[in-house]
């Protein structure tokens, strides 16, 4: 079957995106406050976002294998190249992890000895919130995901050559998928606590992991839709029809609603219980970040809900592209809203204690500036480059996948 060729125009496009990202990072670094909080938070926002997308695609892929799903079999190579980004994404997370060990950034309040010394709550949490656990979660959990990702990818390529009626290769893929679901489910929750939730070290929420995971999943499906539509425009995947897009659109719709459900559950319980240490999380966001706070709900829930509610909007490429682009931006803003308030709080606190002049100059970053957007574009370039490179390394359609025929004759209405 057809093989994807990574055209030079695309290389150039992703290259320019990456250059924009690097330039934005350099400018951020040069114009930053003494603790470089804007520089490091910018990396954390994007690294956790794209690593999460790669991780959740792997999780989704494993779930599809185990549930005997067949409709995606045609374009499963796109999902595979998404999760192969894990290797690159985790490098960024490891760099941030090394930062907690060697102290070259101060994103996390629990990692600042001076602040922890007077803080009983964080002292009590320090058995978990410490650089060793952070590194352990990032390296060991991350490596285990990447290992499974490699196994599944290798087996999937092997199936192209050795696949037969006994489905030996596919059965081995099922074993790895069955390992991945519990492994990914439990470890990703712990990784999310450390990477994102511990930015607000005094605060915790028990469904934060679910919430972040669903946010990643929506973004992953949106990227999947955009990539497949683009490949189809280039003439690949002639057998991917409106029926497949309908199902992808349903996923985008369903998980947007799921995300909104978790968002609301988290918000309403905290609002209703009205306990000071819980409400402070939302108080900060409503007070200083209200634009993004409301934009988050409008873009990530109201827009996909009302646009994709009807049957035919899930079958039209125009509406799908429109919603996908907005939802990707929306979930990136959601990550911004998770990271920035905590970082700003910590930075302000450290600067006030050590460097009053810088603290006086320090101002909260309440909406993403051009530099943040530039870094986001840079990460999109990197993600796209890696995805297209992995795509070009293997045939686009897995010809011996046992479910390929089902996917070719997929009908939903």
């Amino acid at each position, binding site marked *: 079957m057809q093989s994807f060729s990574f055209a030079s125009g695309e290389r150039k496009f992703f290259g320019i995106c990456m250059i924009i990202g690097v330039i934005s990072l350099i400018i951020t670094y040069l114009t930053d406050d003494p603790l470089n909080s804007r520089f490091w938070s910018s990396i954390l926002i994007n690294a956790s976002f794209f690593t999460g997308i790669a991780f959740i695609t792997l999780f989704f892929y494993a779930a599809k294998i185990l549930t005997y799903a067949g409709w995606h079999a045609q374009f499963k190579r796109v999902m595979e190249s998404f999760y192969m980004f894990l290797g690159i994404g985790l490098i960024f997370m490891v760099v941030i992890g090394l930062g907690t060990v060697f102290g070259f950034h101060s994103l996390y309040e629990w990692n600042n000895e001076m602040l922890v010394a007077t803080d009983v709550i964080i002292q009590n949490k320090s058995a978990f919130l410490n650089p060793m656990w952070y590194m352990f979660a990032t390296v060991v959990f991350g490596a285990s995901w990447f290992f499974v990702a490699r196994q599944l990818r290798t087996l999937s390529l092997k199936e192209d050559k050795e696949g037969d009626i006994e489905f030996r290769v596919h059965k081995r893929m099922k074993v790895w998928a069955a390992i991945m679901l519990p492994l990914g489910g439990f470890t990703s929750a712990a990784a999310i606590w450390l990477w994102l939730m511990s930015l607000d070290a005094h605060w915790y929420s028990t469904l934060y992991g679910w919430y972040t995971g669903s946010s990643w999943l929506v973004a992953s499906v949106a990227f999947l839709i955009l990539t497949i539509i683009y490949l189809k425009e280039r003439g690949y995947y002639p057998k991917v029809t409106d029926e497949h897009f309908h199902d992808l659109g349903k996923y985008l719709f369903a998980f947007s609603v799921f995300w909104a459900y978790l968002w609301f559950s988290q918000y309403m319980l905290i609002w209703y219980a009205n306990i000071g240490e819980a409400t402070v999380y939302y108080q900060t966001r409503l007070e200083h970040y209200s634009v993004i706070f409301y934009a988050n709900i409008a873009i990530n829930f109201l827009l996909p809900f009302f646009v994709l509610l*009807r049957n035919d909007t899930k079958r039209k490429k125009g509406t799908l592209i429109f919603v996908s682009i907005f939802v990707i931006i929306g979930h990136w803003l959601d990550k911004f809203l998770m990271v920035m308030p905590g970082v700003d709080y910590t930075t302000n606190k450290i600067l006030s204690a050590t460097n009053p002049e810088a603290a006086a100059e320090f101002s909260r970053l309440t909406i993403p500036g051009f530099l943040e957007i530039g870094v986001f574009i840079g990460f999109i370039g990197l993600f796209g480059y890696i995805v297209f490179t992995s795509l070009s390394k293997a045939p686009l359609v897995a010809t011996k996948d046992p479910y390929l025929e089902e996917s070719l004759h997929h009908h939903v209405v």
Partner: protein
Amino acid sequence: MANSKNVLFGLYNDDDILIDAIKAARNQKLDIMDVFTPFPVHGLDPALGLAESRIHIAGFVFGLIGFITAMGFMSWISVSDWPIIYGGKPYWPVLSFIPITFELTVLFSAVGMVIVFFTICGLGPGVTAKVLDPRITDDMFCIAFDVSNMEENEKAGLQKFFEETGASEINQKTI
């Protein structure tokens, strides 16, 4: 339903034969009254050339009514009829209405669609169902033509159509 219809119908053993017969009927420009199957047959709607069902529009409207009912009723209670301050919340704590609003939206939407569906199909408690043949709820597939106002030669044409497309039985019934 005061107007009773005279129906000529053929029974088929298999859903594939049924689909082929429907295609043949549409090629011959025959006016199919209805098709009955014991289970949902894939590809039946496009074969019959049916437009997309509009019942989901009814669902949306009923959902909207449920939303407005829940929001309106709770707002009326807590703002004007019996205002209470509880838990330090404002008189109009709209967030705490959302779970109930959600439930009523779903309830109205679902029940409303069932009522619309039953009304359209003439079903309901106490209504005698007009079943052409009990076997269409078990193992037979049926194509029905309304022959109330038809000439004998047209009926003969339909008979011939059923025979050609492999119907296992051809019957006539007034419902």
